[in-house]
C-alpha cells in the first residue's frame, strides 16, 4: 500500500517536472523567432515617448483641466499619470482624457490631489 502511494507521488512529481520541462522547451522554441521579430529597445522607447507626448497634448487641451503639474509615463499602451492636481474633478478629467487617446489600453491614475 505504502509503496504504491510512494510510486503515485513520485510519478506525479515526475509528470509535473516533465511538463515544466516541456513548457520551458516550448517557450524556448517560440522565443527564438520572437526576439528577431520584436522591435528593438530603441524603437520601443520611441513609441512610448510618442504616446507620452500624445497623452500630454490631450491633457493640455482638455477643457477644465490644469495639466501642467501632471507627468505621463507610457509602457506599451499602459499609461501612468503622476504629479499633482488641485481637486478630484481634475483627476477624473485627466483619467478620462488619457483613456480617450488612441493607443492607450489602460490608465493608472497615481495623481495626488492637493492644493494650497
Amino acid at each position, binding site marked *: 500500500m505504502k509503496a504504491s502511494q510512494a510510486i503515485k507521488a513520485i510519478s506525479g512529481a515526475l509528470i509535473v517536472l516533465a511538463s515544466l520541462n516541456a513548457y520551458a522547451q516550448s517557450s524556448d522554441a517560440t522565443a527564438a523567432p520572437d526576439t528577431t521579430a520584436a522591435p528593438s529597445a530603441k524603437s520601443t522607447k520611441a513609441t512610448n515617448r510618442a504616446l507620452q507626448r500624445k497623452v500630454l497634448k490631450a491633457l493640455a*487641451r482638455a*477643457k477644465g483641466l490644469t495639466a*501642467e503639474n501632471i507627468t505621463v*509615463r507610457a509602457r506599451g499602451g499602459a499609461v501612468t499619470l503622476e504629479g*499633482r492636481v488641485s481637486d478630484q474633478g481634475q483627476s477624473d478629467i485627466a483619467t478620462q482624457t488619457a483613456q480617450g487617446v488612441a493607443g492607450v489600453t489602460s490608465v493608472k491614475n497615481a495623481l*495626488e490631489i492637493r*492644493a494650497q
Partner: protein
Amino acid sequence: MKKALLAAALMSAGVIAHAQSSVTLYGRLDAGVAYMSGIPSTTGGGSTSRVSLESGDWGTSLWGMKGVEDLGGGLSAVFHLEGSFSTATGALPGSGELFNRYALVGISDNQVGTLTLGRELTLDGEDLWAYDPFAQSSWSSASLVRGRNWQASSNNINFDSQTFGGFAARVQYSLGNTTNFNEGATGNGGQFNNEGRSDAVEIKYNNSYVQLRGVYDEVRNVNGGLGDATDGVWASSREYMAGGNVILGPFTLNAMYDGLRSSGVNGAATGVATTANQEYGGVTWHATPAAQLIAAVYHVNANNGAGNATMYTIGGSYNLSKRTLLDIQVASVRNSNNATFSLEANLPSTPGNSQPDNPLPGHSQTGVYAGIEHSF
C-alpha cells in the same frame, strides 16, 4: 431658400455651442484641531501654548465655479470664480471678498494658450504649491518667508501658454489702478491688500520623471517701492524661485530655492530684512494608493539682523474615500538668536501690525494638527 439654409445653419451652430458649454461647482471644507507652543504669554513673561479648532491647516477651505463655452475653431470662453472661507467660523476672509482667490474671465485657444483678466493667486503660489512637499499647508514654504509667496493679486492680465516640446511659459501682469503707474490702492491684493503694480514670469519644463519650474516676480507696495523700512522684503520685493520635482515610482522628491531682494530701501532698522534666501526640500512617499507620508526641511537666512531659522516637519494623509481624507502634520521651527520666525506665515510684528503668534526672539515654536478634509 438661401435664407432658410442660412437660418438652419445658424440655428444648428447655436445648438452645438450651447451643448458643449459647461459649468462646474466645486469646493473643499477643511477643519482640524491644532496645538502650538512658543506663543509669547500676554500675562507676564515667557511663552505659552494654545489648542485651537482651525480651518485650512492642510488645505484652504474654499468653493468655486468653473465654466467653459466652446466657441468653435479651437477657441473657448472660460471663467473661474473661487473664494476661501473659514470652516471653523463660517466667515469670509479678512477683507471680505466673496471671490478672493480667483475671479477670471478670458479666452482659451487650444494651440496657443489662455488669456484671462481679473483676480488671481500670484504665480509663486498659484503654480509652485505643487513644488512644496507640503503643498502650501499652513506650516510650509510660506512660513519662513512670512507669507510673501502665497498672495492673491487684483487687476491682472494673465497669459498661460500651451506646452511646446515639454516647455511652457506663463506671464502675470497686475496694474496698480492709480494715476501713478507703480503705486497701489486698497483692494489690490498682497499682504496689506493695497499692493502696487506687480508682475511675474514663469518657465516650466516637464518630462516623465522631472518637472522643473522657474519664477521671477516683482511685487510693489502701495508707494511703488520694492521693499520698505518697516516690513523689509516680506510684503513687497523682487523674488527669484527655481526648483523642481523628481518622480521615482512611489516617491516624489522636491527641492526649491526662493530668494527675496529689496531695492532702494533706506533707514531699515536692525532686524528688518532687506535680503532673504529660503531653501527647502522634501520627500513624499505614496505608501498605498490611499496613504502618503511626507518629510521636509525649510531653511531661511535673512540679512540685517533678522536672523535665520529652520523648520523640520513630517506629516501625511489617509484617504477614506476619493473625496474625504484625514490629515496630520507635526512641525518645529528653530530660530537663531534674534529671529522670530513662526510656524505660521506671519509678517514680523511691528507697532502698526502686531503678530501675537510670532515666538520671542531666538525661541523655537512647535506644533501639531490633525484634521479632516472633504471635497465636493
